[in-house]
């Protein structure tokens, strides 16, 4: 479960040094787009040494490796895969690539004797991947999917706008697939780092169509994301009342009961439980 996933450039010591203080649920150490081709070697060593030194980071550690179509990904994996990381993020992911990554990871996990299984977050940034999304979400290790709207817009040859009509279909399709398989649906980052109101609107829209999480490209975006991707006060209060009414009904041996004149049945109770689980996880109750 994640609200915010924060991108951090992998070759920037000043930013790495503080990457754990911004209260992001996950930090994505980026070896791909934030690192120039000539610095790929320094970035992967810096991130690896940083992780070796920082034994207990308070958040999920994600590494965005270079794509499987580059010369860099295998060295990336070799250097950074260890018990210190939780997740590999794969750019330009498709179904075949994810199967290949799974095999590679299994091999490295065995060779290095890892005590845990590394998860994978694919980035959907090709039109083909949008169409394949149902296959992608069922790939091994995948526990969340990120929409990469910038590259997707290039692939579609459309102009990326703040409102985002051009990516609406991709967003909804991604949410649908992730919801069906109960994994995180992670929205594309909001790229104007100076427009906090715009970020808020974008977050609210993403929540309204079902996204569970959002990525951030600047630490100053994290607070807004963390505040938006949680149940509202009203929802939590409602869920608490459902829980109480349900407990009362169970005592009385009632299967179905009503609250505020509305019928409460199993799906409603499950929804309330889901809200409460989230609220507890983020210390809202």
């Amino acid at each position: 479960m994640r609200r915010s996933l924060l991108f951090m450039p992998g070759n920037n010591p000043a930013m790495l040094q503080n990457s754990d203080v911004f209260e992001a649920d996950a930090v994505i150490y980026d070896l791909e787009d934030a690192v120039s081709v000539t610095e790929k070697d320094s970035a992967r060593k810096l991130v690896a040494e940083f992780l070796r030194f920082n034994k207990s980071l308070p958040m999920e550690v994600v590494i965005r490796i270079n794509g499987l179509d580059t010369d860099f990904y295998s060295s990336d994996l070799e250097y950074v895969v260890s018990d210190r990381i939780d997740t590999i993020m794969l750019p330009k992911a498709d179904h075949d690539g994810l199967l290949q990554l799974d095999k590679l990871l299994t091999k490295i996990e065995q060779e290095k004797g890892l005590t845990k299984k590394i998860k994978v977050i694919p980035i959907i940034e090709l039109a083909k991947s949008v169409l394949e999304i149902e296959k992608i979400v069922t790939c091994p290790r995948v526990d969340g999917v990120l929409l990469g709207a910038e590259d997707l817009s290039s692939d579609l040859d459309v102009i990326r706008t703040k409102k985002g009509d051009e990516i609406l279909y991709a967003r909804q399709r991604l949410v649908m697939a992730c919801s069906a398989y109960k994994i995180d649906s992670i929205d594309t980052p909001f790229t104007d780092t100076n427009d906090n109101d715009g970020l808020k609107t974008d977050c609210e829209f993403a929540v309204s169509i079902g996204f569970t999480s959002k990525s951030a490209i600047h630490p100053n975006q994290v607070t807004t994301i963390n505040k938006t991707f949680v149940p509202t006060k009203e929802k939590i209060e409602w869920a608490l009342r459902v829980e109480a009414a349900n407990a009362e009904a169970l005592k009385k041996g009632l299967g179905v009961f009503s609250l505020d004149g509305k019928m409460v049945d199993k799906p409603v109770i499950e929804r309330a439980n889901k809200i409460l689980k989230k609220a507890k996880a983020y210390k809202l109750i």
Partner: protein
Amino acid sequence: MKNSLNRFVPEGFKPFLSSHDYKTKKINLIKEKQTSNEIKMLDDYSHLFDELGIKDGCTLSFHHHLRNGDYVFNEVIKEIKRRNLKNITLAPSSIFPNNFQLVELIENGNVTKISTDYLNGPVAEAVSQGKLKNLLVMYTHGGRPLAISTGELTIDVAILGVPTVDKHGNGTGAIGKSACGSLGYAESDLKYAKKVVFVTDNLVEKVDNPQLDGKYVDYVLTVPAIGDPDGIVSGTTKITKDPVGLKIARYATGVLDELGLIKDGLSMQTGAGGTSLAVASYVKDLMKQRKIKGSFASGGITGYFTDMLEEGLFSELYDVQCFDLKAVQSIGKNKTHHAMSGSRYANCYDDNIVDKLDFVILGATEIDLDFNVNVTTDSHGKIMGGSGGHSDTAHGAKVTVITTNLIKSRMPIIKEKVTTVTTPGEDVDVLVTERGIAINPKRKDLLEKLKDSRLPIMTIEELLKTAHEITGVPKNQTRTDTPVGVVVYRDGTVIDTIFKV
């Protein structure tokens, strides 16, 4: 001799005892000056020196309201050099990098003594290297007016840049081409110097609502320009965008809120730094959300606070110094934006504003396990600042919050012992860093209020350990045994000594 903080005190100075010791002592004020003479009008600096008979051994004072754009101080320095005067004492309220020409006069023995509240740039460097003949005396913004009013610091001639002056010698900083807003730090010099000169580039028939009373003035010197408007005020002071600074500001606001300080009638002060302004901005959000109206904000004033005044979030502003253009404009038009003197601001023997503060947000170059704060020197002991109003507000405010990065360029800000004590730990209550918050154990009342807090509250020792785990333990520095200056606490006692580097 050592003071109560076990810091060295040179011969001839009184040792610091405690921050509230002033209450047990009485002071005697010297007589305010009065001029019966007509005001003499002059038009060049050389003429001024002749008229006043400024000679070897004189003490000249200045204010720093024209900040890094000031011409007055530099013109006087040039005249001292031209005349090759010796053993001059200078008593400006601050010295900035643009006063670099002073270095040569220090080296040549023209200027042999300096007292000031804040000092950075080349002059600070020269003093740290031991080039000044006598010990540098560093006051606080409240301590300087006290020293002047008691005759501890006697001024032969106060040479004060005043943006607008009338024929009767009445002056204001609110208008004129070199407008700088409040002239708070000039007031004690005006009242107690043996002779007073106003230097202006805007002589008018009449000044309405003068900030400085013409009855104390002996000479008015009119020059083409008293300063460079670009250096006098920064265009705008802005909230930091640095995510670490913003995190610190969020924590600080959280602490203030949990302590119940965000309430109707609140009074506050912050510095003009980006993190301090971010705290002000978060406090503002809470005040608006909860429809809270504060009583006043004080200190150096920025556009941020004048906006809050205009939005009705404060009833009044008490302004000793304007930091930006917006503040200068506001003091000219808003009746509830008051200029105040340095004495009214922070003199412990005056009916001062700092004593009425609910909370203050301050910075630190170093802070130690006893919560002593250094804003005077760097970790090598080199001078790079000074108290300004730091120790005054820390003592006056009910809650003093220090906001700082835990680590800057690999240097942990927390030390076992600070290199130089500016503000005693007894007046420092809360330390907020990006990796945790420490409360002074002496403030049991605050700890009690925060006992169920969700904020990361820990001991300062734990915070130091966190810092050392990241940076390693820095090697202790050995200092020289040659004093170059004293840090005078607001009551006139010496809280620490600055050594040659």
